[in-house]
């Protein structure tokens, strides 16, 4: 303040001294400066003399100014965030009204905070908005996919191409260490941010709540929102921004706002997309005689004994080439993969004015999967209506219903093991016909799998202004969803007996929120906002299933006539019921929109927290300084606005279950002819269980530069996750199996940067927008339960890829053998100086062509002592970029995304190479000329010799648990390129419509990567590239919009 006073005095003195020198006629100017949009006075606007480039005076708190200036000079009214206004001084003007226009939309954007709309300028939390327009280029089943690479800090990996399924979503790093680990397929428990759709929190992970033993349809509620209906998406990243969504917000919050009606004349907008999905390049295999020749060559070259040669004549597939049964060249992969033609239609109607408006959106989306017998289709109807009879009362209703239908074939959707296995069949076998050489083909192609999720969400939202500034708001929401899966496996696919599986799940959720807000401005400088609120959420769900074996025939699919002995019958699979109740208060104060303080305090009770502490208390505080509004900043022409934000806060997400708190009773055996019911000894109940807590510090900087031509946002954060639920196995003397504890924690810290530039002037017919964003996130495990002493290894079976948790390191590391290449010659194999034995495993010594695996402990035997911690399964850097260029009505958009510094285990290559393990078997062979493989003594190669089939059983050259498969998963992907053209209005009107736009796009165009596998993105959240995964398709889209 002092500096400012001094400055003012100095400016006045300077002005005076100048005026003394000039001796020109002075005129007096008086007036008010107001915002053109809001018509509110703007204080502290500087009036600058253009010739001297010095400030003459400033406006006061009410926007009034009074200045003297020489005739003929020009005064510039300058204020951060507004376009400068030039006034030519001629005569005395005592009642001027200067209207300043805003330059920069992003600062005055309205954002939703704690269910209340506020100006972004006065929010202290870190958030990022994406406009709905940016999400229309590519038709997708799940709008979330399109956020990839658009929001710094939001790491989205579209790692499955299965239609209707979600990829993985992480906001600001890893938030769980719960993995399910088996052999080389390790999955991470999804930790998706909380989605709030039109003020109603929904659980996007619903589809995978049962882990990866996926039962029922895997349709996320997010997949039932048509992208055409999305007005905007806002991602709340720090604890202050998410403070008021606390009870489930530990993973961040994503707010989706759907469109509202705002047109006096009713509008009808129709959007159509037609798209072709094509499978990616498939594995190259050798067909027909080439396969036979290679297998024979492999046997002759590597036979261990004469018995192997004899075996050729006993293997008709190899020896009886004239037998027409084995005289084929079947392309098995082509039997499963296909190109599909799909379409989407969307009809949106909206209209109304301030007093009453409405919207209805009807959507149809269908995407047949590139794997046969899979697909997703969606029918949606979303409506809302807002009634505002006077300034004090507002009433809004929402109704959305959706039906999602899905076919998963015989797989789990994102995992298609059946296809993966059968696509490896030998090309010598006859293809599918009346006679089936492979039952798996029928299973994959003829299994009738119908899934349907039906979802209804309704809500009403009322707001009443009691007194000026004092508002009462209430929201009531009910949503219901029903999930059904029916699977019929025909007899030919299941050893001549058909079977039936039925799944039925329903869940509903009731949500109510009440708020009392008060906002006021004192002396035009001090603004306060106070709010108290509560919300209650109750959700219930139950799933049940029935399985019947040996049903009558393929025509009559049941339910009558099954084999009672073999059938599993039916019953309840899961049952859940949970309540959340929260009470919170928040307060916010700002001084001249320059200095802002936000405080919030929230008490959350959840029924999945322990008995002893059902309520958790989550405070948060945020500060913001819009230093760009300081007067002294007005001298920096290039800076339109600038602010610095600091925040701290805590959030929770419930993780426990009722049985982890209260324990469980189970049905035991009979005692005295009475059914006994006793304690379940599997797990000790923990009445002290706490919800997962995330505490976050955030420091942010926002700049708008060069008259809005460039925007720069930078955020750095440190977040600590505590009380992660961790099931601790107990010693076998305890009596109980395990104990759910809270004693784990991890931290994430990192930086996020967003930079956008609009280099061309607004008058230029060419418009070019470029943006770049990136996030660097580092994750460290900080705590494990006491007994583990800082390390726990999640072993994944004999040949599996183990995951290790070690305190002080990135949470999920691999625990593998270190591969150092391939032994070029036999003498490269080290010899034990003590025993004279060569380096060995399983009593078989290594030789040339075998993998050189590091003998870490120096006993010249490869065993479990030689595992080492290595790699980081989570990406360190993620981000994206976009470019859009338009000239009048033609334009082009390009979106890209990248992920860097992540370890991928190329299991696809491992299984591709080990397909050669049995030349006598019924599998295809691949041609390996492109592989850097050892072939003869002396070869220095990367990959071991694949053709010596005798070494697979003990030496296991392509064992999964080695770093040979560990590769850098850095990639840059061009997500999509869109070209659009808007027809001239006149042309459109001649057709009887008001607007017509056509567009052509291609998505998933190209991925630049050094990764040697098929696709560095199509890997699990732990970086395992599964050959059984569902590949991502490349789509070519033609679409048009027309407005009536």
């Amino acid at each position: 303040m002092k500096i400012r006073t001094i400055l003012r005095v100095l400016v006045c003195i300077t002005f005076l001294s100048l005026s003394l020198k000039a001796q020109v006629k002075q005129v007096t100017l008086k007036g008010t400066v107001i915002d053109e949009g809001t018509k509110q006075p703007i204080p502290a606007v500087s009036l600058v003399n253009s010739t001297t480039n010095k400030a003459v005076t400033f406006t006061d708190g009410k926007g009034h100014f009074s200045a003297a200036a020489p005739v003929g000079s020009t005064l510039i009214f300058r204020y951060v965030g507004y376009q400068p206004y030039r006034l030519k001084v001629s005569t005395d003007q005592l009642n001027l009204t200067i209207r300043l226009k805003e330059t920069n939309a992003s600062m005055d954007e309205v954002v939703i905070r704690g269910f209340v709309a506020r100006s972004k300028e006065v929010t202290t939390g870190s958030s990022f908005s994406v406009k709905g327009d940016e999400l229309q280029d590519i038709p997708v089943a799940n709008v979330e996919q399109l956020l990839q690479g658009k929001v710094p800090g939001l790491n989205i990996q579209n790692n499955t191409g299965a239609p209707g399924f979600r990829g993985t979503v992480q906001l600001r790093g890893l938030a769980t260490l719960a993995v399910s680990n088996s052999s080389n397929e390790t999955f991470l428990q999804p930790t998706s941010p909380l989605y709030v759709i039109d003020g109603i929190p929904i659980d996007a992970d619903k589809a995978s709540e049962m882990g990866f033993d996926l039962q029922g349809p895997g349709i996320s509620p997010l997949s039932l929102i048509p992208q055409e209906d999305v007005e905007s998406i806002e991602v709340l990243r720090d604890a202050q921004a998410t403070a008021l969504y606390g009870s489930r917000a530990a993973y961040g919050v994503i707010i989706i706002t759907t469109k509202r009606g705002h047109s006096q004349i009713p509008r009808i907008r129709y959007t159509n997309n037609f798209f072709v999905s094509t499978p990616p390049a498939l594995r190259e295999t050798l067909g027909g005689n080439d396969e036979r020749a290679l297998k024979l060559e492999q046997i002759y070259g590597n036979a261990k004994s004469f018995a192997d040669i004899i075996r050729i004549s006993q293997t008709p597939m190899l020896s009886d080439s004239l037998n027409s049964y084995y005289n084929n060249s079947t392309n098995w992969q082509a039997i499963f993969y296909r190109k599909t033609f799909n379409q989407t239609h969307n009809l949106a109607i909206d209209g109304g004015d301030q007093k009453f408006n409405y919207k209805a959106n009807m959507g149809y989306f269908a995407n047949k999967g590139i794997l046969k017998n899979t697909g997703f289709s969606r029918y949606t109807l979303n409506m809302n209506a807002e009634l505002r009879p006077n300034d004090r009362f507002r009433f809004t209703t929402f109704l959305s219903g959706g039906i999602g239908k899905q076919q998963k074939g015989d797989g789990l959707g994102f995992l298609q093991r059946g296809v993966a296995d059968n696509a490896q069949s030998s090309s010598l076998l006859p293809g599918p016909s009346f006679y089936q050489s492979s039952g798996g083909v029928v299973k994959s192609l003829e299994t009738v799998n119908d899934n349907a999720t039906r979802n209804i969400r309704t809500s009403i939202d009322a707001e009443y202004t009691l007194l000026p500034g004092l508002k009462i708001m209430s929201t009531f929401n009910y949503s219901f969803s029903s999930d059904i899966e029916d699977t019929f496996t025909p007899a030919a696919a299941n050893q001549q007996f058909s079977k039936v599986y039925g799944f039925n799940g329903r869940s509903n959720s009731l949500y109510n929120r009440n708020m009392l807000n008060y906002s006021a401005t004192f002396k035009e400088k001090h603004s306060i906002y106070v709010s108290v609120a509560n919300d209650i959420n109750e959700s219930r769900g139950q799933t049940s299933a029935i399985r019947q074996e040996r049903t009558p025939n393929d025509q009559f699919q049941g339910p009558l006539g099954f084999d009672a002995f073999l059938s599993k019958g039916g019953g309840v699979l899961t049952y859940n019921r949970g309540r959340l109740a929260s009470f919170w208060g928040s307060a916010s104060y700002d001084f001249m929109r320059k200095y802002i303080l936000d405080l919030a305090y929230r008490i959350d009770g959840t029924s999945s927290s322990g008995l002893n502490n059902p309520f958790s208390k989550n405070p948060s505080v945020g500060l913001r300084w819009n230093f760009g509004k300081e007067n002294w900043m007005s001298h920096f022409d290039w800076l339109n606005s600038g602010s610095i934000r600091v925040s701290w806060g805590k959030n929770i997400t419930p993780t426990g279950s009722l049985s982890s708190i209260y324990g469980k009773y189970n049905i035991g055996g009979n005692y005295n002819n009475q059914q006994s019911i006793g304690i379940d000894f599997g797990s000790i109940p923990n009445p002290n269980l706490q919800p997962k807590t995330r505490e976050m510090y955030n420091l942010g900087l926002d700049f708008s530069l060069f008259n809005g031509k460039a925007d720069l946002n930078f955020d750095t954060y440190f977040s600590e996750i505590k009380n992660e639920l961790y099931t601790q196995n107990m010693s076998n003397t305890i009596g109980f199996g395990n104990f759910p504890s809270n004693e784990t924690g991890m931290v994430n810290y990192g930086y996020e940067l967003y930079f956008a530039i609009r280099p061309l002037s607004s008058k230029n017919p060419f418009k070019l927008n470029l943006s770049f964003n990136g996030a660097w996130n580092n994750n460290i495990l900080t705590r494990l339960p006491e007994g583990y002493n800082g390390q726990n290894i999640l072993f994944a079976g004999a040949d599996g890829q183990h995951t290790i948790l070690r305190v002080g390191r990135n949470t999920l590391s691999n625990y593998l053998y270190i591969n150092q290449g391939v032994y070029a010659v036999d003498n490269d194999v080290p010899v034990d100086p003590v025993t004279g034995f060569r380096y060995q495993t399983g009593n078989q010594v290594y030789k040339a062509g075998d993998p050189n695996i590091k003998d870490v402990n120096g006993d010249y035997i490869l065993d479990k002592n030689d595992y080492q911690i290595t790699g980081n399964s989570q990406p360190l850097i993620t981000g994206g970029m976009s470019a859009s260029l338009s000239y009048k009505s033609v334009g082009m958009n390009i979106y890209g995304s990248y992920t860097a510094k992540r370890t991928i285990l190329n299991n696809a290559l491992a299984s591709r190479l080990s397909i050669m393990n049995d030349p006598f078997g019924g599998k295809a062979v691949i041609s390996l000329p492109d592989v850097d493989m050892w072939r003869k003594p002396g070869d220095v190669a990367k990959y071991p010799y694949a053709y010596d089939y005798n070494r697979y059983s003990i030496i296991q050259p392509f064992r999964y648990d080695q770093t040979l498969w560990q590769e850098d998963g850095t990639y840059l992907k061009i997500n999509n390129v869109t070209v659009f053209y808007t027809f001239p209005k006149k042309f459109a009107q001649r057709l009887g419509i008001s607007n017509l736009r056509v567009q052509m796009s291609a998505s998933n165009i190209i991925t630049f990567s050094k990764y040697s596998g098929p696709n560095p993105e199509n890997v699990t959240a732990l970086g395992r590239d599964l050959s059984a995964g569902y590949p991502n398709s490349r789509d070519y889209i033609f679409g048009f919009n027309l407005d009536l």
Partner: protein
Amino acid sequence: MSFNLNNNRNIQRKSKWLLFAVPFILSFSGCKKLFEVPGEKEYISNKISYGTKFFEPILGRTTLMGSFNADNSTQPLTFSIVNARYGDGRPITDFYKTKEVWVWTGAYDGKEKTLEEINSKRKKELRPLLEVRASGQLILWSSATDDLIPARKTDSTNLLQDRRYFDVKVSNIGGEVIIKDLEFRLWRERPYEPSNDFNPYTGKIAITPADFLDPINKLNYIRPSRISNIIGKSTRKELVSNDVVVSIRPFSGGNGHSLRFRFLDKNAVVINPAKFNETKWDQLVHGFNRQTTDEYVQYDVAYPIPLINIPTSYASGGRANVNFSYSRLGFGGIRQVGSIGLDFSIYREGDWEIVFQFRNDNPKFEDE
């Protein structure tokens, strides 16, 4: 005046610079330190152990002992033997003596053509008699012989002051653990196997009490591992292994690494080895420079025999296999192949002879 304003601007510029710099400095100075994030530590389990705490190696042989269970501690670990002491607390020093010993540098496969080729795959190195290596395995080198390390008492007492205890210190960057009170009870050298012809406690020949004046009349003898179709000259019955006594004994006059085979009849008269006419002399042992005389067959060999425990054409199951055979026309004109064989090993380098003596009857080499 304007000077002042400029000055002010300078301050602003500085503050602007600070504005950019402070958060960067704050964030890059390391959140890890600021928020006390624990650093990575190698893991060392406090449950690490050996499969046994008690070791009974035989001196004079290179022995690899100890199945170490690291309990997933971060490898490589550093091991050291500490606090080697007798039961009464006196320190043990003899383990730390150094002596030259053969260590392998290449892989012996039994196909070497010369002695030099074998020796090019190993070299002599000066090593402490007892070592522990990075895998936690304890190595008692063959250089640890009776004269350097006293073995257990010949009177088989095991008094506290004679018991050898030691601790093993295991460490990595994460910490260290001491595995305490491991114990050695050493067997004295047994330079060859089978060694049932002498007392393992004393190393002396145990003489039959019934006939203790006869130096040959041991309590126990080495017998041939195989004998078949050898017909006694006088009894005309097939000889069994108890009819033959084998001695493995040093002889003088060799070159320091020779092995000799001799055959004696029941009167201790030398049988010409040429009589074992079906013997594959060149593949008998992995030896070179065969010298065949009327009395013996001698080879230059590399000790120990066998060199390593892998199956070769000369050895299997950790023992060298020798077979001597001859053929004759048996009763009824059938060709009979008589053979006698021994599985043995010799650990001490020197000149050794293996003598087969037919004690009860002489073999019949002549046709019927």
